C-alpha cells in the first residue's frame, strides 16, 4: 500500500515535469544566453558554469523521465540515447554542449508537435464534423438533448434549423433543406420531406424535421467514412513496415556502437556524439507524414484514398478501365440530328409526340422531350412491334414509328436522299427513329447520348499523368460505344460486356503486366473493383462502393479522377523523397563522425532535429497540392 502511494506521487511529479516541458525549454534558453554572455562579455566563469549546469540538469529532466519510462517497457528510445549523451557530456565537464543539446532536443520536439498538427489538420477538420449531440424524444414525450452515443436505432430525434443531423435516418415529419457536403461533396442543399433519407454529419439549413434513427455512430455512412480515413492515414506499406523493423534494432545498435567506440578508442566525445546521431527520427516519421498530408488533401477534395499501399499502387497505374459509357456520357439520350421529308411537319410532329407519349422507351422519352409542347391527339389501336417500333392510328392516319426494319415491314419506300441520311446519321453514332404517316416517310431522327462536359479534358490530363491505356467496357449495344471511344481518344472499347466478362478482361490485362485501375459505380461491378489493382468507386457514398473499393470519388464526380491520380503520384514521390532525406542525413552524419573534424554533439543534434523538420515541411507541401494542368 505504502509503495503504491509513493509510486503514485512519483508519477504525478513526472507528469508535472513533462507538462512543463515548454517552460523548461524557455528557462533553459535564457540560462544558456546568460551563461554565454557572462563568459564572453563579463569574463565571469563562475556564473557561466552555474547557469549552464542548471540549464543542463533542468533540460535533461523531462528527457530522462521519458527515457526511464521507455526502458521500463523495454524500448531503447532516442530519449535514452540523448540522456546518456548529456550525462556523459556533463561528466567530462562539457557544459556548453550538454546545455545546448538538451535545449535543441526540447525545441525540436516542440516544433515537431506544432508542424505535425498542421499535416494532420485536413483530416481533423473532417472528423470534427462528426455530430456530438441530438434532441431525443423521451418517454415523457419531450425532446431532450443527449450525447450522440446515447442514441439507439429506432429513437425519434428532432433536428432544428442550422444543426447537424446526428444519425442516418428517415424523415418522419417536417420538411427542410439539407446541405450534404460532408457526404457527397456537393454543397447545393437537397430538399427533404417525409420518408426521405438523411445522413449523419449533414446540416439542416432550414426547416425543422423529426427523424427516426436507422443507423447510429460508427455504422452511419459518415462514421464509416471517418473510420476509413483514420485507418487509411495510419495504414502501412511494405516499405514502412521494413523501416519500422529496422528502426527497432537500429537504436539499440547505436548504443552498442557508441559503447564499443568508447571502449576501443577511449574517446568519450566521439562516443556521445554517436549517441546523439543515433535516432532515425526522420526515417520513422517521414512516411507517415507524407501519408497523412496526402490523404488529408484528398479528403478535402472529395477523394478518399484508402492507405499508403494503395497510394503506391495508384501512382503506378498505366491502364484505366471504365465500367460503362454512362460514366463518360451524360446517360440521357437526346435528339441530336433531324431530317424532314415532305410538308406538314408540324402535324407530323404532333402525331409523333402523341404516339411516343404512350411509351416509356428511353428513345421515346428523348423524342417527347425534344418536341416539347404540342397538340396531342388520341391514339388508337396501338400495336407494339417488338424490337422495331410502334404502329398506331392517330387522327385517322396510320402512323409508324420505329427503326429501318419497321419501315421495310410497313412497305415504306425510302428515297435515295433518305438512304444517304440514314447512313450518315448512323456514322455519327445515332440510334435512328423513322416516322411514316400513311406509308410515307416524314421524319428521320438521330438520337444519341452526349459526352459529359469536361470528360475529354479530364482524360487528356490522365494521359499527361502517364496513363497509357484508357479502356471502356460497356454493357450497351447501341453502337454508341465506338463513337464515344473515338471522340474521347480511348485506346480500346468493348461492347456487350456482362459483369463477369469485365472481370475476365481485367484479369487478362493484369496477366499482361499492366497496372489496372477500374472505375465503376460499384453496383454490379464489385468483382472488377476487387480484381483490379486499384478499384475506384464513383459512388455518392453508397455502401458497397465504399467497402469494396480502394479509392472513392465522392459525389460521383469524374473531374476528381485526375486530381486523385496526380495526388497519389505526388504523395508517393513525397514519401520517396522523405526516405532519401532521412537515410541520407544518417549516412552523412555517421560518416562525418569518423571522417571529419567539425562534427560534434551540437551539430549532430541540430542535423537530427533539422532533418525531422525538413521531412515534415516536405510532407506539408502535399496539403496544398493541386493539379497543374
Amino acid at each position, binding site marked *: 500500500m505504502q509503495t503504491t502511494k509513493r509510486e503514485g506521487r512519483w*508519477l504525478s511529479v*513526472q*507528469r508535472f515535469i*513533462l507538462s512543463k516541458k515548454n517552460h523548461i525549454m524557455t528557462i533553459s534558453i535564457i540560462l544558456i544566453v546568460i551563461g554565454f554572455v557572462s563568459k564572453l562579455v563579463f569574463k565571469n566563469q563562475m556564473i557561466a558554469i552555474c547557469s549552464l549546469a542548471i540549464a543542463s540538469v533542468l533540460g535533461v529532466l523531462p528527457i530522462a*523521465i*521519458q527515457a526511464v*519510462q*521507455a526502458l*521500463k*517497457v*523495454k*524500448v531503447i*528510445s*532516442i*530519449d535514452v540515447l540523448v540522456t546518456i549523451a548529456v550525462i556523459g557530456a556533463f561528466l567530462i565537464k562539457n557544459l556548453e554542449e550538454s546545455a545546448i543539446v538538451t535545449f535543441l532536443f526540447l525545441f525540436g*520536439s516542440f516544433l*515537431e*508537435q506544432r508542424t*505535425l*498538427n498542421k499535416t*494532420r489538420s485536413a*483530416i481533423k477538420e473532417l472528423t470534427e464534423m462528426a455530430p456530438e449531440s441530438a434532441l431525443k424524444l423521451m418517454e415523457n414525450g419531450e425532446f431532450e438533448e443527449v450525447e450522440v452515443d446515447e442514441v439507439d436505432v429506432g429513437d425519434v430525434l428532432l433536428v432544428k434549423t442550422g444543426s447537424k443531423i446526428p444519425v442516418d435516418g428517415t424523415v418522419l415529419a417536417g420538411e427542410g433543406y439539407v446541405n450534404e457536403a460532408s457526404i457527397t461533396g456537393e454543397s447545393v442543399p437537397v430538399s427533404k420531406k417525409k420518408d426521405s433519407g438523411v445522413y449523419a454529419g449533414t446540416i439542416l439549413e432550414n426547416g425543422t424535421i423529426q427523424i427516426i434513427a436507422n443507423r447510429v455512430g460508427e455504422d452511419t455512412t459518415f462514421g464509416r467514412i471517418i473510420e476509413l480515413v*483514420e*485507418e487509411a*492515414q*495510419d495504414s502501412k506499406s511494405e516499405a514502412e513496415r521494413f523501416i519500422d523493423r529496422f*528502426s*527497432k534494432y537500429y*537504436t539499440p545498435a547505436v548504443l552498442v556502437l557508441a559503447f564499443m567506440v568508447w571502449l576501443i578508442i577511449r574517446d568519450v566525445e566521439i562516443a556521445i556524439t554517436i549517441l546523439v546521431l543515433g*535516432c*532515425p*527520427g526522420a526515417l*520513422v*516519421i517521414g512516411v*507517415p507524414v507524407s*501519408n*497523412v498530408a496526402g490523404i488529408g488533401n484528398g479528403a478535402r477534395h472529395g477523394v478518399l484514398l484508402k492507405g499508403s499501399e494503395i497510394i503506391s499502387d495508384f501512382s503506378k497505374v498505366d491502364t484505366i478501365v471504365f465500367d460503362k459509357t454512362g460514366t463518360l456520357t451524360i446517360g440521357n439520350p437526346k435528339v441530336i440530328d433531324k431530317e424532314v421529308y415532305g410538308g406538314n411537319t408540324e402535324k407530323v410532329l404532333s402525331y409523333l409526340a402523341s404516339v411516343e407519349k404512350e411509351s416509356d422507351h428511353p428513345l421515346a422519352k428523348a423524342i417527347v422531350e425534344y418536341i416539347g409542347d404540342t397538340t396531342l391527339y388520341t391514339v388508337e389501336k396501338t400495336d407494339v412491334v417488338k424490337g422495331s417500333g410502334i404502329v398506331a392510328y392517330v387522327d385517322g392516319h396510320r402512323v409508324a414509328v420505329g427503326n429501318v426494319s419497321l419501315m421495310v415491314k410497313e412497305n415504306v419506300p425510302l428515297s435515295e436522299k433518305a438512304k444517304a441520311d440514314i447512313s450518315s446519321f448512323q456514322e455519327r453514332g445515332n440510334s435512328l427513329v423513322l416516322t411514316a404517316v400513311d406509308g410515307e416517310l416524314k421524319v428521320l431522327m438521330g438520337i444519341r447520348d452526349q459526352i459529359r462536359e469536361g470528360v475529354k479534358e479530364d482524360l487528356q490530363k490522365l494521359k499527361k499523368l502517364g496513363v497509357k491505356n484508357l479502356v471502356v467496357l460497356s454493357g450497351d449495344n447501341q453502337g454508341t460505344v465506338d463513337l464515344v471511344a473515338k471522340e474521347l481518344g480511348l485506346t480500346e472499347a468493348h461492347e456487350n460486356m456482362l459483369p463477369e466478362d469485365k472481370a475476365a478482361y481485367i484479369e487478362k490485362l493484369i496477366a499482361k503486366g499492366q497496372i489496372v485501375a477500374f472505375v465503376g459505380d460499384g453496383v454490379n461491378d464489385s468483382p472488377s473493383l476487387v480484381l483490379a489493382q486499384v478499384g475506384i468507386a464513383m459512388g455518392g457514398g453508397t455502401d458497397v462502393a465504399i467497402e469494396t473499393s480502394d479509392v472513392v470519388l465522392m459525389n460521383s464526380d469524374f473531374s476528381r479522377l485526375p486530381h486523385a491520380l496526380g495526388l497519389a503520384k505526388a504523395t508517393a514521390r513525397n514519401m520517396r523523397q522523405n526516405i532519401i532525406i532521412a537515410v541520407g542525413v544518417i549516412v552523412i552524419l555517421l560518416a562525418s563522425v569518423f571522417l571529419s573534424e567539425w562534427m560534434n554533439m551540437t551539430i549532430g543534434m541540430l542535423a537530427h532535429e533539422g532533418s*525531422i523538420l525538413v521531412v515534415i515541411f516536405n510532407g506539408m507541401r502535399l496539403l496544398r497540392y493541386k493539379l497543374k494542368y
Partner: protein
Amino acid sequence: MKKATIQLETLTCPSCILKVENATKSVPGVDKDSVKVMFNSSKVKFDFDDEKTSVEEVEKAITALGYQVMKSKVK
C-alpha cells in the same frame, strides 16, 4: 475476446509508437498480435480477453508512460 480502442493525447515523437505498443503488449490478457498503435490519429487498437484483463489495466500501463488517455471504447 473483446475489441478496444483507446484515444490518446496527440502523439508526436517517433519513439512514442514503440513505447505505447510495448506497454500495451505487456498487459497479460492482451492479444499481442492485435495491438496496433495509430500514429496520426493517436489511437491504440487491440483485442483482449475480458476474463483476464480490462481496458482500465491497459490504460494504467499507458498512463504510467506519461501519456494521457482521452477516451476509450470497448466493443
